[in-house]
Structures are given as structure tokens and as C-alpha cells.
């Protein structure tokens, strides 16, 4: 049985200046499932996320989301497409001059002409979903880390997006708050039939929520599959990531000495 695909990434290359961050990534994100992108620091997770959000233009390759190639889409098309996407950023990205409720309503006020009563009720429905209803009138500066993440999630889902991106939902949270957020992500998938992409390196969370897992390493896709397939992998990089084994770095003595003494840099500049 073929699975419907929400996001198709083909031969994606992303560079910052001369630095290649993602190298020839091919990845399918299935519709209506929770896909987790994981990998160590510097593996390219955030760059892949930024590329999918249309915030970083790839050097080459294609990203088709719900049938639209966002790499070649015009700014107007991208703007229209973003109405189908919700993003909860790692730090929340809430506007500090607005209350929690006002932050959450913002996409509705920007993109719709709904009646004020409808906007207010929708806001409270979403606040209730993330257990933030009593905190509608607080300012972002008055929120804890977990509350900020939940408020950001409420804003991300206010337009009932087909695609939800969640950057590091568990980072910096206590285990209970983190587990509550995991439950919420699963409920959102089940009840609202969202395709959810979560970027994280929190292993406990990954295996609790993921239908599919993609592991990045050194700018490439190491492995993509179900949690069972990932667990069964004997690829040393996957095993290392799952067992939290420190990376083994092969050292070229001469090259390392040249780097430390500055000779390498000098020869690079020539």
C-alpha cells in the first residue's frame, strides 16, 4: 500500500556561503503522521526545518509540500501556502508587547475576516487545548518555559493547519511538562489529522510520539524509517546516537597540528 506523502524532499543541497550544511537529502514525510527529524548538534536539523519553512532557500534540489514546490514558489504563493502551515519555534517567538491571547489571535487577524466573537472563541478553544486557558491575559514575560512552548503551539494551530512544525518541543522543560507536550502532539494528530514534523534530539520524546524517524548526520540523511526500523539499525552512527555514545573523531596528526598552529588557515586563504 502506498502511503500518501505530505512533503517530498529531493536531492536537497543547502549551503551557507561555502559551507555545505545539507548534502543531497531525499526524504518523504507521510500525510497525517508524526515525523521526527533527529540528529546531533550541527547535523543540519534546523537548516532542514528552515528550508521546509521557506526561510532558507536551498542551493539546489526540491521541496514539494502538499503538491507545491516551495523552492520555486513566488513570494505571493509562499505567503498563501503558509496559511496551511503552523510553526512552533523553539523559543516561542511570541511578541512581548502582546498578551498570550493577542499573540494567538494574530494569524487570524492577519489572514481572515472572521467575526470578533469567532476569533475570541477560537482563541479560547486553542488555549484550552494546550491547557493555557487561565493564562490568556498574561504577557509572555510572565510565562514559564513550558507555558511559552504551549502558547507558541496554540498560535501555531490557531488556523487549523494541515502541516505543523514543532522545533525542539522538549528542550529545557522538566520531564512532566515535556511528557504533557508529547501527549498533546499525539492528540493533535489524532483529532485534527495534522501532518506533524518535530525536530528534536530528546530520545524519550522521539520514541513516544514518532510514526517515522529521520536521522541526520554530517549534513546527510543517515536513515529514515519507523521507530522499530531505527531501533533495529546496526549503523554505528544510529547506534551511537541512540546510546548517547560520544562521537569518535579520527585525527590526522599533521593536519591537526597545522590547524592549531594556524598554518592550515594560512594555506586555506591562499
Amino acid at each position, binding site marked *: 500500500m502506498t502511503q500518501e506523502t505530505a512533503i517530498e524532499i529531493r536531492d536537497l543541497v543547502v549551503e551557507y556561503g561555502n559551507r555545505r550544511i545539507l548534502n543531497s537529502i531525499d526524504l518523504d514525510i507521510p500525510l497525517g503522521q508524526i515525523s521526527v527529524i533527529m540528529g546531533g548538534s550541527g547535523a543540519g536539523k534546523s537548516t532542514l526545518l528552515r528550508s521546509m519553512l521557506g526561510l532558507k532557500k536551498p542551493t539546489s534540489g526540491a521541496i514539494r509540500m502538499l503538491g507545491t514546490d516551495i523552492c520555486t514558489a513566488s513570494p505571493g504563493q509562499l505567503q498563501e501556502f503558509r496559511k496551511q502551515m503552523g510553526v512552533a519555534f523553539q523559543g516561542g517567538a511570541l511578541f512581548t508587547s502582546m498578551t498570550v491571547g493577542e499573540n494567538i489571535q494574530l494569524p487570524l487577524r492577519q489572514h*481572515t*475576516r*472572521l*467575526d470578533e*466573537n*469567532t476569533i475570541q*472563541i*477560537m482563541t479560547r*478553544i*486553542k488555549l*484550552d*487545548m494546550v491547557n493555557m486557558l487561565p493564562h490568556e491575559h498574561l504577557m509572555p514575560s510572565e510565562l514559564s518555559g513550558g507555558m511559552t512552548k504551549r502558547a507558541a503551539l496554540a498560535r501555531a494551530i*490557531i*488556523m*487549523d493547519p494541515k502541516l505543523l512544525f514543532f522545533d525542539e518541543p522538549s528542550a529545557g522543560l522538566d520531564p512532566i511538562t515535556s511528557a504533557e507536550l508529547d501527549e498533546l502532539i499525539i*492528540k*493533535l494528530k*489524532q*483529532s*485534527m*489529522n495534522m501532518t506533524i514534523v518535530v525536530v528534536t534530539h530528546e530520545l524519550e520524546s522521539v520514541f513516544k510520539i514518532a510514526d517515522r524517524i529521520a536521522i541526520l548526520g554530517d549534513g546527510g540523511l543517515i536513515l529514515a524509517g519507523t521507530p522499530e526500523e531505527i531501533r533495529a539499525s546496526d549503523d554505528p552512527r544510529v547506534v551511537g546516537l541512540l546510546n548517547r555514545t560520544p562521537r569518535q573523531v579520527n585525527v590526522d596528526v599533521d593536519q591537526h597540528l597545522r590547524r592549531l598552529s594556524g598554518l592550515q588557515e594560512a594555506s586555506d586563504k591562499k
Partner: protein
Amino acid sequence: MKHELVNKPDFDVLVLSGDIDLHHSPTLRERILSSLKGGRPLLIDMQEVSYIDSSGIASLVEGFQTAKSSNLHFGLLSISSPTLQVLAITRLDKIFSLYETEDSFIEILEL
């Protein structure tokens, strides 16, 4: 979304079908509120609703609140399982009066 208001002897039925999303919920809101202005109980038949988003649910909440403040019965008929899940995540399944048949709504009116 398609909609049709059917006048029964003691109440109105708003029959809905198709998808109810951001584009259709203003119409749904207007239909519900204008029907309630007539001062008759309202049953929303959702059997043929394939999808409802939170703007549609917000219209139902406002309708329910309006009916309640006018002492009118307001019910939802034949809610599908996916819609019920959306209601359940915000506990609205415990707030709305849900009916499986029109007769069960009539029984409540007769009490």
C-alpha cells in the same frame, strides 16, 4: 459546505453537509444566529459533515451560548467520529447536547 433550514412543527433543523472551514464558518454562524432569532429550538444535523475546523466549532459554541441565554434548546445531531474527537480534545463533547436521532431531541423538548 451546503446548508438547508428545515422548519419542523416545534423546532428548526439546520442540515449541513461537506467541509466547514474558515471560508464557510461565517455563513454557518449567520445561519445559526438568524435561525435562533426566530425564538425556536435548533437542531444542527451534522450527519453529512465531512470536516469541521475550529472556526466552525466556534460558530457552534456561539450558537449554543446564544440559545442558552434565550432558554432555547440547541442540539447537534449525528456527529461523526472525527468531529467528536475534535470536540473531545477541548471537552466540548461534554458541553454540547449531542443526539443520535431527531426523536431523542423531540423527547427532550417534550420534557
